[in-house]
């Protein structure tokens, strides 16, 4: 049930034509996850910032006015990484950072955070953050349950943001490799994984990698979703 709700949010995100649609999608996602805040935050190499999210406006203004970008340990901690970072692992020990954290809490941010770093083309850097207030145990359960999904959602937002920024065509257009196309086509006509692997003379393990890559390129949560997207985009055609 909840997976299909997430799917429909991602469908709307995929169909977004303006930055306002991103904001609507992130608000819907916050409701879906029942967390305090979700934020997509793009930081360009020259310090320009762009994003959407549910942080209180007063906090966003405060952040910009104070130039918190320079000391925010989440930015510093994620900038050179490509795997999600739990805020607990970051260094919050300096006086300036402690004051920043106090200020954030005073502005309504929760004490827990989980940020997915994204590295796009040409040095592009963005973060997708979940912020919430709960105890460590509940937080560990939440992040373990949703880590994979959050990484995919983070990339979905970044794809759209790149599209708006550069006015470029969606990068997923027809970028499936020939093997990935073969695999998706056979799945679409109802072959089992074993039959697909057999037909393509590859192992099921190799097939899993092709499907995984195709899924990601299509911005899909799971294989069924990926097949549906490939068909709706006309990448695969099945019929008499």
């Amino acid at each position, binding site marked *: 049930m909840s997976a299909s709700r997430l799917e429909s949010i991602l469908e709307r995100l995929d169909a977004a034509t303006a930055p306002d649609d991103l904001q609507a999608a992130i608000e819907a996602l916050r409701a879906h996850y029942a967390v305090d805040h979700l934020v997509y935050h793009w930081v360009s190499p020259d310090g320009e910032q762009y994003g959407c999210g549910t942080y209180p406006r007063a906090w966003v203004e405060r952040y910009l006015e104070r130039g918190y970008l320079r000391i925010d340990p989440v930015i510093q901690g994620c900038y050179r990484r490509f*795997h999600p970072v739990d805020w607990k*692992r970051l260094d919050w020990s300096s006086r300036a950072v402690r004051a920043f954290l106090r200020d954030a809490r005073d502005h309504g941010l929760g004490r827990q955070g989980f940020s997915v770093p994204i*590295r796009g083309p040409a040095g592009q850097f963005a973060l997708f953050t979940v912020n919430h207030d709960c105890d460590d145990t509940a937080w560990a359960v939440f992040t373990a349950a949703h880590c994979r999904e959050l990484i995919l959602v983070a990339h979905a937002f970044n794809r759209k943001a790149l599209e708006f920024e550069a006015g470029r065509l969606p990068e997923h257009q027809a970028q499936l*490799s020939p093997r*990935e196309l073969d695999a998706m086509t056979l799945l679409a006509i109802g072959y089992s994984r074993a039959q697909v692997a057999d037909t393509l003379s590859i192992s099921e393990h190799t097939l899993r*990698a092709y499907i995984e890559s195709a899924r*990601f390129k299509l911005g899909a949560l799971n294989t069924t979703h990926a097949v549906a997207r490939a068909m709706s985009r006309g990448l695969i055609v099945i019929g008499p």
Partner: protein
Amino acid sequence: MLRLLSAERLARHPRLADEMFRHRAAQFRDRLGWEVQVDADGRERDAYDALDPLYLIWQRAEGGHGGSFRLMPTAGRCMVNEHFADVAGVTSSPFIWEVTRFCLAPRAEGQVAAALMLGGGAVMRAAGLEHLLGVFDARMERIYVRIGAAPEVLGRRGKGRDRIGVGLWRLTPEAEARVAARAGLSPDLVARWVARDFDAASVPAPARSA
């Protein structure tokens, strides 16, 4: 001991870094004759070393470099997609990481290669990956086979000594047991080494003064 180091943390281990880049020059330029960039001090580095990859390194008891490889997710810029797309197509996923510059120190044993492969499995588990995607030359491929960690080859280019392959590794208990026996290491110990470094994304826990 195995170490998983970000480029940033590698810089704090100058001897290890220096030896790793020299051994890469010895393997890729001197032995394989690849057209790689080697600086005046004999260190081989490429554009991907500047993109903050992770390095998995076997550090010898005396502190030096025994062997290593470089890890990056295929969702972003990476070597497999930018240089070997003709061999195996473009693979893209945050859950498939590429393994490149798999390098053994001169006279390093298969045991070091096995330890590194075991570490690769531990990284997969720590990061929730299903696959590693590697680029390898003919000699390294033979070594992988010998230590019980043969990749599933997706494509090849070239012939004989110059042959390059792109292939996938997966994590199976059987392969892990074979490689662990060859490495003479317990998978639990390797998992602890990797988990420790994987978690050390930065320094201590936040002060919850707020």
